[in-house]
């Protein structure tokens, strides 16, 4: 069973743990269970799981605190489980380094899909290393600084290009507005999100993408942007 995917679930509700066990087990994943934050941190260190599922409402520790601790030493994908309406918590978790979030209640299929995205993301090269993105007719070759849509070159301004590559490096993952601003504009980041909206809008136009029915850039209202898949 060493090559099966190992998931650490940090969750205080026994019923949800049971459901996670059943769902993940049915998809050939091994589940490590922690009832408390402390136990979870211990297991994360000793067992090095492939993905961590973290409930934000733990009795002993603040979920944000756990993310901060984990991110001090590991890049293991963290998927946060939270209740609906807690947009601020989601943003905070994402900005602290969580990879994705799931809103309770969620369906089994959705959970599996998110775990797969997280695993794929984890296997991709980190940092500024060159990458290639290819999805639904859009190809990005970062080494050649080239963007093609349906076989034709797309001409982007430097900011649009940076915006697209940041999204592509993290494709499938939601990037909060704040983190986008920081990564695209670096330390000159404007504090006004209107700029981000305008550039995203221009980028969408050049990619022939429609916000009403997005093909590439998806808006997560209140959270941020995500590039498909």
């Amino acid at each position, binding site marked *: 069973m060493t090559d099966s995917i190992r998931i650490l679930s940090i969750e205080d509700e026994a019923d*949800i743990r049971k*459901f996670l066990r059943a769902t993940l087990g049915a998809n050939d994943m091994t589940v490590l269970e922690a009832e408390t934050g402390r136990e979870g941190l211990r297991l994360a260190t000793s067992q090095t799981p492939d993905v961590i599922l973290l409930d934000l*409402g733990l009795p002993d520790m603040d979920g944000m605190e756990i993310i901060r601790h984990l991110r001090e030493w590991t890049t293991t994908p963290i998927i946060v489980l939270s209740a609906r309406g807690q947009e601020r918590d989601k943003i905070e978790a994402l900005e602290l380094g969580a990879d994705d979030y799931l809103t309770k*209640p969620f369906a089994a299929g959705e959970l599996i899909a998110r775990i797969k995205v997280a695993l794929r993301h984890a296997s991709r090269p980190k940092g500024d290393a060159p990458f290639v993105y290819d999805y639904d007719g859009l190809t990005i070759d970062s080494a050649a600084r080239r963007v093609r849509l349906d076989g034709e070159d797309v001409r982007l301004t430097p900011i649009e290009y940076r915006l697209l590559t940041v999204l592509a490096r993290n494709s499938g993952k939601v990037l909060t507005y704040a983190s986008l601003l920081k990564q695209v504009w670096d330390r000159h980041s404007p504090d006004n999100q209107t700029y981000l909206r305008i550039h995203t809008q221009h980028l969408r136009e050049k990619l022939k993408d429609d916000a009403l029915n997005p093909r590439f850039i*998806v808006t997560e*209202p209140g959270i941020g942007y995500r590039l498909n898949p």
Partner: protein
Amino acid sequence: MSPDTRPDPDKLLALVNHDGGEGVPRRGRLKVFFGASAGVGKTYAMLNEARARLRDGIDVVSGVIEHHGRRETQALMEGIPVLPMLEIDHRGIRLTEFDLDGALARRPGLILVDEFAHTNAPGSRHPKRWQDVEELLDNGIDVYTTLNVQHLESANDQVARLTGVWVSETVPDTIFEAADDIALVDIPSDELLKRLADGKVYVAEGANTRAAENFFKKSNLLALREMALRRTAERVDAQSDELSAAMGQNEAQLGHKIMLLIGPDPLSTRLIRHAKRMAARGRAPWFAVYLQSDRHEMLNEKSRARVEQYLRLAENLGAQVVRLSGAQPARDILTYARQNGFTRIMVGHRRTKWWLKPFRTAFAQQLIENSDGIEIAVINGDAAPDSVTENVVSSIRPFIARPIDYGLAFAAVALATLAGLPFRDNTPSDNLTMLYLTAVVIVAARLGLGPSVVASILSVPAFNFFFAEPYYTFNFYDSYYYITFVFMLVTSLVVGSLTARLSRHARQVSERERETQILYGLTRALSAVRGVDRICEVAISHLSAPYNLAVSLFVDAPEGLRSVPKSAEPEDMKEMSAVRWVAANTQMAGRDTDTLPSASGLYLPLQAENETLGVMGLTPNASGRRFTGSEILQFETFASLVAGALQRARRSDEAERSKIDSENERLRNVLLSSLSHDLRTPLTVMNGSVSLLLKMRKELPRKAMDELTALWGQLIRLQKFVGNLLNMAAITSGKMTLNFQPYMIQEIIGAALSQVQSTKENRQLRTQIVGNLPMVQIDGGLVEQVFVNLLENAFQHTASDGEIVIAAERDADRLRIRISDNGAGLKAGDEARIFEQFQTAQTLSSDRAGGTGLGLAICRGIVQAHGGMIYARNNSDKTGASFIFTLPIVPDLPKETP
């Protein structure tokens, strides 16, 4: 224009529309049709104008019209709705009276109330009709009325002197002057006389024809006409002054401030009218001052009542009433006058009797001698017959005592005699005079001045008869006794009168002491108790016994006036209507006041800091008792004390309530967050398990799969319901905080569309974006929720292959979004109701909303929190409904920077 003379816009505005400002209902406008005498055609003019108003579309009602059977008048009344008169049964006589409550209930725009000065039938709410009119005006109803000059308070005595006819029905000048409009109805005197001769003028039935003849003499009519014209002119003057004051000119050019000294002397009435005319001519403020000196204590009830009556008269004529107390009248009044900037003091004066001249300086004289700078106007009173008797009564007042007291004085002398008899033979008779002196002192202390004088005078012959030899005769041998008798008489008179005065002072002091004690006791007791009911109990127990009154309190409560104790609620409708009147008008009413004087209780408003907290009722246990002015003043003090305590109680109640409210709020939030957690956990588990089972399509029998699919559908519904419930709770508790960010509305629509993919079935979703839409500043997550809810609502009411259009366009500074479906549409009247909480297909006439009944309420909450509006209507082509909402556009887009 210098800043000082610039018109004060507020003052001008106040002149134009006498309104109390926002929230205060408009006071009605009063128009007086004013004439010199009966027969000039006031009622006729009033009706003519009322008809014109009626044609203007104003709701005119005739309250009282005295047509006196004149045909022209009756013809004019046709077409004006009539308010039925109230029938009052007064000691078996049926009287008809203006129905004030009927008028207030009917609330016309304008009401006609003839004969302003009319005196109401006994038992009416107000003694005078002008008071009824005041109440109508206070309630925002315009009034037309008629008035003859002779019925004006200040013209009253002039008219009486002129015509010899005394009119008891008068209207205070202040009321007349406060009228918004005065229309002078004038015909030449000759014409009036002709009308009189033709029998066109109504002369009161039963009136003395001779008196009427006297009244309608040409000379009188000329004089009355002149008076009416002059009064109208004066008013126009006053109005232009008001206007020029508002325009920034000097208010009172003459700068006079007049003080009128009032006493129990009937001369005061004339003084008051005189002062009023003087003040009006100089447009000066005037004050009626009554000095409550030692002499006040010596006045009888009748005089005191008269003082109160004069003060009220002065107040009615526009004076401000001041009561001063002091031991040295002239000095105290001058000090007060100097401190308050009075320029003129008016005082009445009667000739001092010749035999008193060496002993006393007239009060006016004292004022004049010390006035320096202040003008003293002395009005000489001729000795009217009634005032002479009054003076006599006033000076013998100290001698008035009960007959029994004189009997007791006699008994005291007899007792002194009996006590002396055993010592007659072995004691020098001079010493025995001491016995009589003792008796006189005791009588003086106990029974007052009169009986002590009687005792003094009786003592001398008694001593002579019993103790001066020869005994039992009024003769005496020793001429030395002459001296004894004279000294005995003088000594006992002096000692007696001194003692009597001393004990009277002592009594006054103890009376004041008692008052202070009650006040102190009440204050202390009130500060010690909490709660409205306890405060009322304390007030009742502290005031009932000392004043021999039945005290009842009516406390303002949410459900209306609540009487404390419960049993105190009067069965008599008259008492209760007095209570209500006092509460509504915050003025005292009832016994010994001007309003509802026939009520058996006196009712005072409990008012603190402009807040009416209730009414205090005082009903004397002895039915014939009258409240004096000073007693009423004391009661007012008590009422304000009780009101203060009630207000404190109310404040602390409110604080308590808000504490409970915030505690409830906290509890609710705790409940909500635990609810949200506790509901979501099992839902997540169920959701997960069912979704897992649904994947085992191959292993499970087909029937189980069908059941699972149904269960899945219900689970999704339940999840939505819980989500909506929590959203609604957040909105209604005001706990929803908006995270405003700029968005293109298309992004939000796109996100919402992807959310409803699984539930839209075969429905066609089309979007129409008109032109280039600007960004909106919104909370993206919440607005997405609005779209999702509206779309799901549309799904519920369209066929599974229906068509739904989402359209967005710019409308000035807003974005207008419309979601239309081609379903059944809304039933009439549901357009607004569907946005209320928990309105579902069951409670609504149309099959709209459906589901939990929260979705649309949430939409409204979110849209309103964004400063937008939301509404629903049926499509113009009668196919389906449209839900429309607006969102504010980001005001100005910052310039793009590289």
